[in-house]
């Protein structure tokens, strides 16, 4: 079992350079697919093993922690690994056509290699128990995602990627400085070891500085309001496949690291008396309102969904900021649910983009009649984004509102409800345009020659519907994410509180 955990990182580490050497797009796609299949299977097995509370330790290189790097897998990071691996798998199946269309032939093997490196980085961030190792994986995933975003079709993709590069580098710098301060105070980089000996150095001012630096770094990476400015453009301009994958995983992994840092590296007894929880709540609530407001005003579906992501990240931050068990469970479950919902929505947006060459709502009037399947996926996944009962989105919002009420924080509970109503507005805006407005004279735009028309994308549509079905499945059967979250939160609160 221990062996399997390290394979989650080793397999993409080997397959990515092989993909980069073999300059053939079919082989590249096939290698990526096989890699993702293996990773999804492995992560499933690992999650199944640890979901009841067991913890797997793996010592890299045979060096004992705290000196060596150690991978610690509990139900929380196994859940994150499952999200990353399964979304990667479905994205690769979904994206074979779109990547072929959007990426230049000479670059496509490099595209897939970079894609595998992002998976590697995200999985590594999830699995490692060493905070410096975490930084290394953060950089691996970030650097490859800059490259992936820059491969977008339009020239604006370069600007978006450059902005993300700037924000991401700043974030990584803050994070690294924070780690440095923490190391100066504690003398160790192993997260469990830092937590264990936290009382010995917790009185040092350096520790607060470290906490702040790490938090700001992570907030930039996770696009927490008001540090979200790189996100909308990056998601809008990136190639379809990249948007689907990054939107549903990369910020979630950053939120995971935030949770891990706030509850296991720094015990929550340390920061609950500070301004921090209030600040997290404020930033989360403002993020929800601002993201939803901006989403309502967008005319491009991709950008609308991107702003909605900013809002949804607000829910997770609020869950963390509430600092009670229910809130944290809600944050973790929402991480899972939002990943599948956004994957479904961005897949639907990608289908629209591929078939009609635009995601501009003004040009999509009445598209519901000409392409009922694609727009149907939109409507169904939109329900989950709003949080209609019976969908995945409902479960986590329900828990979040409960957690807020448990704390007696009615302002937060009210904000969540207002943001949900705003979510109805922006989802309705799409639905209305697609179904209830008469079509313009032309529904297919910018079609130069016959071969550019993509009439049907059965595989991609199927993948999209798989994700939609997943949204509904996890709305009705919540066992897996909820059990994992419960187990994780129990552990987090016992290690945090019981120092």
């Amino acid at each position, binding site marked *: 079992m221990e062996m399997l955990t390290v394979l989650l990182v080793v397999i993409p580490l*080997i397959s990515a*350079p*092989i993909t980069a*050497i073999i300059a053939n797009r079919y082989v590249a796609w096939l290698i990526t697919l096989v890699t993702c299949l293996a990773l999804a299977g492995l992560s499933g097995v690992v999650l199944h093993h640890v979901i009841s509370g067991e913890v797997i330790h793996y010592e890299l*290189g045979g060096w004992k922690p705290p000196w060596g790097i150690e991978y610690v897998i509990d139900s929380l990071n196994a859940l994150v690994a499952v999200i990353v691996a399964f979304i990667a798998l479905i994205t690769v199946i979904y994206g074979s056509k779109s990547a072929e269309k959007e990426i230049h032939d000479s670059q496509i093997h490099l595209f897939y290699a970079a894609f595998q490196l992002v998976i590697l980085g995200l999985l590594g961030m999830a699995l490692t128990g060493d905070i410096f190792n975490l930084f290394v994986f953060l950089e691996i995933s970030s650097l490859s995602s800059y490259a992936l975003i820059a491969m977008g079709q339009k020239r604006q993709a370069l600007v978006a990627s450059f902005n993300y590069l700037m924000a991401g580098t700043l974030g990584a710098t803050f994070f690294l400085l924070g780690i440095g301060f923490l190391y100066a105070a504690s003398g160790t980089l192993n997260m469990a070891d830092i937590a264990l000996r936290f009382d010995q150095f917790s009185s040092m001012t350096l520790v607060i500085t470290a906490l702040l630096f790490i938090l700001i770094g992570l907030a930039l990476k996770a696009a927490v309001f008001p540090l979200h400015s790189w996100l909308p453009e990056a998601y809008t301009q990136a190639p379809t496949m990249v948007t689907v994958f990054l939107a549903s995983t990369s910020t979630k992994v950053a939120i995971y690291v935030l949770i891990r840092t706030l509850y296991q590296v720094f015990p929550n007894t340390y920061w609950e008396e500070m301004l921090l929880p209030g600040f997290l709540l404020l930033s989360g609530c403002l993020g929800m309102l601002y993201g939803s407001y901006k989403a309502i005003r967008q005319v491009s579906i991709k950008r609308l969904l991107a702003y909605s992501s900013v809002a949804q990240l607000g829910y997770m931050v609020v869950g963390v900021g509430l600092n009670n068990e229910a809130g944290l469970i809600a944050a973790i479950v929402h991480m899972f649910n939002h990943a599948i919902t956004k994957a479904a929505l961005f897949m639907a947006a990608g289908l629209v983009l591929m078939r009609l060459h635009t995601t501009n709502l003004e040009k999509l009037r009445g598209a519901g009649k000409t392409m009922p399947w694609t727009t149907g996926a939109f409507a169904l996944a939109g329900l989950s984004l709003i949080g209609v009962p019976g969908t995945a989105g409902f479960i986590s919002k329900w828990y979040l509102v409960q957690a807020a009420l448990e704390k007696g924080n009615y302002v937060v509970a009210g904000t969540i409800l207002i943001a949900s109503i705003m979510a109805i507005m922006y989802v309705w805006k799409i639905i209305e345009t697609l179904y209830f407005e008469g079509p313009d004279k032309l529904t297919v735009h910018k079609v130069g020659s016959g071969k550019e028309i993509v009439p049907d994308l059965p595989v991609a549509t199927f993948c999209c519907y798989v994700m939609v079905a997943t949204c509904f499945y996890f709305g009705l059967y919540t066992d897996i994410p909820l059990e994992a979250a419960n187990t994780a939160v129990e552990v987090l609160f016992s290690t945090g509180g019981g120092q």
Partner: protein
Amino acid sequence: MSDSLILRVVTKWLVPVILLFALYVQFHGDYSPGGGFQAGVIFSSAFLLYALVYGVDATTRVLPEAILRIGASLGVLLFAGVGVVSLFKGGAFLNYSVLAGTPVAGQHLGIILIELGVGITVACVMLLLFYTFARTIPPQ
């Protein structure tokens, strides 16, 4: 700069020396300061010097971009491969002790191979970066 006779001659003399020094840093890295990263940078700097004096085109004829890309990937593969071999031999990932008969010999072998992988990748990536910024030739 290619018209200066002195520079051309001195470069021809210096390049092999720099390469030799890079290899020294590479293979002496397990006993003394040095290792793959430093060696890779020094190795690539020999080609940088060559490119500065003789031009990028001449350098790409010696080391084409395609080969550099393969080299960069192979270095990573070598690194990961050592880890996988140690996995198959029953140790943890990158546990060099199991690579040879005795742990000491295994550690020795492991670190040399790992550093070689690092060196190859760093040298190739350094040159790729230089080519990308300096080239007037179209991308391949």
